[in-house]
């Protein structure tokens, strides 16, 4: 199981801020997890499309598409940050 968090515009567009999902075999990095979520269609496909500006973090650290994701990790997807 991995915990997946969504923030800000993404959270609103997807209608959820947090879920737990079972990683299927073959889903071992952030890009693969993002593709899995996008395959749900609708807002998921639109918001998590490869061309979107969505950013990701794994275990509270900024991550890239090839960052490994494994059971027990906390993954987050969100728009580019706008604080300060």
């Amino acid at each position, binding site marked *: 199981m991995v915990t997946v968090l969504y*923030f800000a515009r993404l959270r609103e567009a997807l209608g959820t801020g947090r879920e737990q999902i079972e990683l299927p075999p073959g889903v071992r990095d952030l890009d693969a997890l993002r593709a899995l979520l996008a395959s749900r269609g609708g807002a998921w496909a639109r918001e998590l499309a490869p061309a979107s500006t969505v950013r990701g973090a794994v275990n*509270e650290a*900024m991550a890239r598409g090839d960052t490994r994701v494994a059971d027990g990790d906390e993954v*987050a997807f969100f*728009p580019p940050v706008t*604080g*300060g």
Partner: protein
Amino acid sequence: MTVRIQTADFDAGAEIAALRAGNPKIGAVASFVGLVRDVNEGERVSQMTLEHYPGMTEKAIEEIVAEARTRWDICDALVVHRVGALKPGDQIVLVAVAGAHRGDAFAACQFVMDYLKTRAPFWKKEHTGEGARWVEARASDEIAAGRWRSKG
């Protein structure tokens, strides 16, 4: 190093005083306060909501400050960032850096602000007459942060 995320307002003068208290080696404190403006991109803003990623936010800011310490000779640094509902004129963020000399304190303070703007997980939602909208990331902030890659 102190990093605080809070809904409450802060007193910049008291924070600066606490930062430098008890260290007579400190000759310079550079600081920055960011405020909610009443207009953004031509639209009147009546309120703002700041969302963040608890846990990661603190870690990200601590890393930014640690990076500043490797680049400049500074004694201590403080970041206070508010979250939740804010109104025009409200304080959003305080960055204060104490050092022996002003050059390092100024550079480190500006570096922390520029990196915080592009690396720390905060998101602003503005409430205007047209409704609410999430603030888009600004290219100018990426450029400001990028400047430090070729310097310092």
